[in-house]
């Protein structure tokens, strides 16, 4: 199984993703030269050969003009009539990469430039779905897009089309699509409740998102009984729904030494919070202490252990643990931070897979 951590490409190319969104809004659309109609085919060819930067740069300029937008619209209509699925897939990936770059290049691209890319994605997507809604490429693209949306922060959600309901409609029994959807609803609950670690408190309006997440994650687990992430997330969602027994039954096995350290670390953290909720302080502390050291950046486990020790009056131990939490390595990510970004951690592999599909 892929290690639970930040995608390397994401670090290199899209590191500024959510943070730089702050600057997007107030930058006017750049005045750029219009591209000739024939240029679009050249851009697709360049992208197919692997020149992502050049192709994306060109397509941004193209879609920033009225003429360029009309060019794209006409081209998409023509390819749809010709049932040219391969070209539309290539175009969808090209504009998707442009839009993804837009998430992280807010100031440079400008809001209108970014929205142009999102509109182009939508235009090509609609045409492609009409021709091949359930193709392997479409599945991969849905997963890629959802990982971007979840990783980029929620603001883009309010600005972009929502493809997830379509993904669920077209791939209703796909374990990974269901997992991505479960992540989304877990996330929506977070936004609704204002706190990703709100403790169980009975029903609330935002709990409907949790119940939906639990349903989707159960379906995901059923569709692929070997996958561990749906169980991890289901365990946490059940805890948040106050189903402590259900949560423990999902998490116990994941907390075993045989499991990949990142997932095991999270399972132990989540088990610990459940045990804290049961007021089993000793067992909770054991869970947190077991999590410590499993991964390079174990800040959350150390903070959790320190807080519990502090609550128990063990001030010296709490101070020592916090001291260690304050001096963890500067590189790497705590799996909890990764977990909070939903399916973003799958971005790299999905981008690579989608690129390979259109370049074959």
């Amino acid at each position, binding site marked *: 199984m892929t290690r639970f951590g930040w995608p390397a490409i994401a670090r290199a190319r899209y590191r500024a993703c959510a943070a730089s969104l702050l600057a997007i809004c107030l930058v006017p659309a750049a005045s750029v030269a219009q591209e000739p109609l024939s240029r679009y085919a050249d851009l697709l060819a360049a992208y197919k050969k692997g020149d992502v930067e050049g192709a994306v740069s060109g397509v941004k300029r193209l879609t920033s003009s009225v003429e360029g937008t009309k060019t794209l619209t006409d081209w998409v209509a023509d390819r749809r009539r010709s049932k040219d699925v391969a070209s539309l897939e290539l175009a969808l990936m090209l504009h998707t990469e442009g839009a993804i770059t837009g998430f992280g290049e807010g100031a440079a691209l400008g809001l209108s430039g970014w929205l142009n890319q999102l509109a182009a994605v939508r235009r090509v997507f609609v045409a492609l779905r009409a021709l091949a809604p359930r193709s392997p490429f479409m599945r991969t693209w849905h997963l890629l897009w959802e990982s971007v949306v979840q990783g980029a922060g929620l603001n883009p959600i309010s*600005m972009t089309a929502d493809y997830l309901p379509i993904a669920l409609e077209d791939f209703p029994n796909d374990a990974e699509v269901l997992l991505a959807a479960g992540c989304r609803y877990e996330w929506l609950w977070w936004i609704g409740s204002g706190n990703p670690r709100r403790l169980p408190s009975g029903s609330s309006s935002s709990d409907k998102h949790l119940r939906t997440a639990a349903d989707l994650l159960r379906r995901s687990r059923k569709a692929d009984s070997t996958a561990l992430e749906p169980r991890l997330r289901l365990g946490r969602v059940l805890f948040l729904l106050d189903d402590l027994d259900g949560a423990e039954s999902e998490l116990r096995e994941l907390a075993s030494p045989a499991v990949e350290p990142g997932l095991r670390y999270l399972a132990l953290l989540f088990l610990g919070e459940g045990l804290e909720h049961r007021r089993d*302080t000793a067992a909770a502390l054991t869970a947190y202490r077991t999590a410590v050291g499993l991964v390079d950046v174990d*800040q959350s486990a150390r903070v959790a252990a320190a807080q519990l020790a502090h609550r128990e009056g063990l001030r010296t131990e709490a101070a020592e643990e916090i001291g260690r939490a*304050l001096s963890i390595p500067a590189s790497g*990510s705590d799996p909890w931070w990764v977990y909070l970004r939903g399916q973003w951690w799958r971005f790299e592999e999905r981008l690579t897979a989608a690129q390979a599909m259109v370049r074959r």
Partner: protein
Amino acid sequence: MIRTWCGLSLVACAAGATLVAQTARFTTGVAAVRVDVLVTDRGRPVTGLARTDFELRDNGVAQAVTDVSSETLPLNLLCVLDLSGSVTGVPLANLKDGLRALIDALAPADRAALVTFSQRLQLHTRLTGDKALLRTLVQGVTSGGSTSVIDAAFAGLALREADEGRTLMLLFSDGRDTTSWLTARTVLEAARRTDVIVYPVTVLVTNVMNMIVSRPNDPVSVMPSVRFLPGSDEGLRLLDAFADDTGGRLFYAEGQGTLRKTFLDVLAEFRQRYVLSYTPRGVTSDGWHTIEVKLRGRRGQVKARRGYFGVTPGGGARTPQK
């Protein structure tokens, strides 16, 4: 009976003696509780008050204030600073400028510690009186990343050292938590178990991204409208609650350019606080103690922590009775 108190600084007081370093354990009958209070009248600190000017109740039972001091104890300044991605460029320069001014304003006996956070917590130095070191460390900080303000606030509390000094936590953040493990509730409970006084400082910014682009006629549905960034407002609520529960005050800087003045205002206000001491009478030792402090026959508002925990050795966690 030997007992341990948690939640407020405790000082062993001999009759008529000055304050001395507290210890974790002491014998009932010589225990004293120290309460740090701010008195203001129409927003301005009131100075020159004596112990007879205060009325103090511990769990509703009137207590005799045995000592009032001001500026007699050294200051332990815990700087807990948000260095997430929102504090870059000019804001970071302004923050450093404010911190340098703050360091310069410390008295010779004062000490300061430096903790920074994005999603990651980092201790640059524990409490030190070495101003040159502090200035160097401040100069070297960089920013970037998400925000773990709740975890950082707890780290500051846990680092509080057991000595006779008064501990001020200057907690600078935009308050929007995105990556903490701890909840605000647990950290507030932790705050009630210490005597740290928290002065959060935040900068009000306009949310330029709070706009929705809707395309209702689009064949593809538009995603549900949600607010900007997946951060938690709990962070902002924490800042306010932190100040309220610990007897501090939340300062809003009007902009990053005013941080220097804001930091110095915090320090000046803290120096005009009073430290009231009393030996609890007529109350049980354990559990949550609610403290009420009022002025006797004078106009003004008193701000003090809401209470403290009394814990027996080996005792488990207790829920605040609030």
